[in-house]
């Protein structure tokens, strides 16, 4: 049991537990907190693979900004406990065995027939300078396009979330 495997299993357990908890909880705030735990554990997994810049950006952007947005909206809209819906019998009858068989099949195929080489700890060090070289030379066009996308998203969010009377007054 190498140290790498122990760390991988520890972070992996938090990921798996958080994902299952997200499905199991009925109040959205608990699901949001489990998702934050999943993202933090994923940042740990990225560090194990050597992607230090990606891990830091994951914590800053995903866990520290996007999830704050989610928590805000849950607080603002006062989202309560999810209502019980009557489940579908057919879905339960075919769904659960279907998911179980397909997942067992996929796990068996991946473990047996895919790559079994080791990924060493810190396999591909992603220094910020190397990533910046790629980002601003080879991937400059996608970078600029995504910045335009963010600009459009900002404008769209401001317009969509503003109060209806304000927009009516501006138009009329």
């Amino acid at each position, binding site marked *: 049991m190498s140290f790498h495997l122990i760390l991988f299993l520890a972070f992996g357990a938090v990921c798996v537990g958080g994902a299952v908890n997200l499905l199991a909880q009925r109040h959205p*705030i608990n699901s949001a907190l489990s998702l934050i735990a999943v993202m933090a554990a994923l940042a740990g997994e990225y560090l194990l693979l050597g992607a*230090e*810049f990606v891990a830091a950006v994951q914590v800053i952007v995903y866990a520290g900004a996007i999830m*704050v947005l989610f*928590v805000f909206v849950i*607080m*603002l809209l006062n989202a309560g406990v999810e209502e019980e819906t009557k489940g579908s019998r057919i879905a339960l009858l075919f769904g659960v065995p279907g998911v179980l068989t397909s997942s067992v099949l996929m796990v068996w195929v991946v473990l047996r027939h895919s790559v079994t080489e080791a990924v060493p700890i810190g396999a591909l060090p992603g220094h*910020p300078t190397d990533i910046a070289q790629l980002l601003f030379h080879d991937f400059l066009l996608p970078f600029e396009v995504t910045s335009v996308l963010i600009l459009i998203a900002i404008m769209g969010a401001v317009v969509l979330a503003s109060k209806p009377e304000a927009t009516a007054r501006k138009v009329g």
Partner: protein
Amino acid sequence: MGEEAKALSVGVFILVSVIKSVLVLFVLLTAVAYTVWLERKVVGHMQNRWGPTRVGPFGLLQPAADGLKFLFKEDLTPPHVYKPLFLAAPMMAVIFALTSISVIPFGNSIPIFGYNIPLQITDVNIGLLLILGVTSMGVYGVALAGWSSNNKYSLLGGLRASAQMVSYEIALGLSLVGVLIQSGSFSLRTIVDAQGGRFLGFIPRWNIFHGQFIGFFIYLMAAYAETNRIPFDLPEAETELVAGYHTEYSSMKFAMFFMAEYANMITVACVATLLFFGGWHGPLIGPPLVQAVLPVFWFLAKVFCFLFLYIWVRGTLPRFRYDQLMSFGWKFLLPLAIANLVATAIAVAW
């Protein structure tokens, strides 16, 4: 540098890291307690009164008395709160406030028993990003405390505080990018090392004199807003929102919010010292033994100046209204930070 330093084996490294962590944590918690004392004294003198004087000489034992008071107070958990988050929020606030001290370097390496031990718990390549990340996570303590209290004043205070912290995080990050462009690395030790030496013979090469003057003021204002201090402390002002997000908290949990706020102040002061004021660089005078320890003294002196500035501003300025606060952050500070970044990039690329 006398003998060759021995390389640290794994066991020695772990032992040294544990000792460093315990020492730094102890010093940080004492510093938090005495920052409270300093604030009460300084604000008191600014308001023409004495501040604490009764407990110990100059009121120096006042933090100990406050700590005992918090321990003995009744820890009330109101029946209408959402218990799991109510208990977890102050713990989250304190954990994230204390984590960022682990990448802050206090001085150069000290040779002990033949090993060269750097005065930093860990020097990661992305030290500055780690501090930014932990600051972003600190919003959760405030937001969840406000929400779990099930109380309209707490909810409003929590929402306002977290919206304010998220807005000023952007200006904070952008003001630091100017320093990063000039230093070329995220590692805090490398940034400080790039500020050694002098130019024109007597002006030290600190980043504030070397082009980041506006960047420093943007950082200062954004940091005051991040730590919810006057003039940006509307979310926790007594006259506005009862006590904002920590209305329903008492005893140790309230003390934890208090500790988290002052620990954040100390972290901000340390980062400002490292990034803009040359960290531990200062005149090295005296015998070699003193010279090994003098950098730490310079670092602490600069951090103390920042804490005094924080307290001075608190005693002097009135607080912003919430809409003034938000428009200041988005419409003034953010464009100014971007302009600073563009100007620095052009100057470096020239």
